[in-house]
């Protein structure tokens, strides 16, 4: 178990370093989503390994997932609203 924890910690630090480095990369439109994607990978690693989602009853997945499901609904419907508005983004 300690080996798994240590390996996860090392990967998380590497991902942190990558996100820092990515701030200065000419990535075009990917620049807006890459750091969030890396953060999502970090969050998944922390939840599965450090918060032990991988162990114990599967009911934990449901309880952990439902918050993110509601978040997706909130973000999805909000994005649908803003992306279909005329004159948005406001400064373009």
């Amino acid at each position: 178990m300690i080996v798994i924890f240590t390996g996860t910690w090392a990967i998380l630090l590497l991902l942190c370093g990558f996100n820092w480095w990515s701030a200065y990369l000419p990535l075009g439109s990917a620049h807006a989503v890459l750091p969030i994607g890396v953060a999502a990978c970090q969050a998944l690693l922390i939840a599965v390994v450090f918060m032990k989602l991988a162990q114990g009853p599967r009911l934990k997945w449901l309880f952990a997932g439902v918050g993110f499901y509601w978040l997706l609904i909130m973000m999805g419907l909000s994005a649908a609203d803003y992306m279909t508005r005329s004159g948005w983004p406001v400064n373009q």
Partner: protein
Amino acid sequence: MPALRPEIQYATLAQQSETAQLGMWVFLATEVLFFGGIMLAYEVYRTSYPAAFAAAMAESVIVIGAINTALLLTSSFTMALAVHWTAIGQPRRATGSLILTAGLGVAFLALKALEYYIDYQDHVVPRLGFEIHGVPRGPAELFWLFYFYATGLHAIHLTIGIVVLSVMIVHSWRQRFLPQSHNLLEVAGLYWSFIDIVWVFLFALIYPIGRVVS
């Protein structure tokens, strides 16, 4: 030594432990929506004013942000070790790991305070001598409002986590946690790691994302 039997409403210690963890996950779901709403509003305005937000973001101290991220990631690691060592009956190691975890949390807050001071010196605190050149002042100031609001709320959560950890250190030091029964520590560990998850998203949104407008 506490008796090895569950509370009256539970059939087994395992059921009691699962219930405590599920309860914490329900609380964390409300926290996901709490911070999620702030991040959603931030993204709406960042997408609306990309140039002003990028210019404002360029003033943020990414070095301290990255070091703080590493500190919190390490604290999640030491917190998981503390729970593990308690579960295999090594309370001394668990106590040491908990002290290290709390210390990393305090180091995070100290660096955050230093960062706020640098921000003040750089004249980026809204309504306190705010200055920015080349982009509209309003949207740039909005970025910094989000920055202080989101990082401030996160710091409050982290402070609560440090207080909780201090109680856990005392419990662990007095060997009140047993390998078969340490629900308080498990639940405190979930809360601590969740604070870490919130921060990795805040770091991504505040420091690197859209910093280079290409």
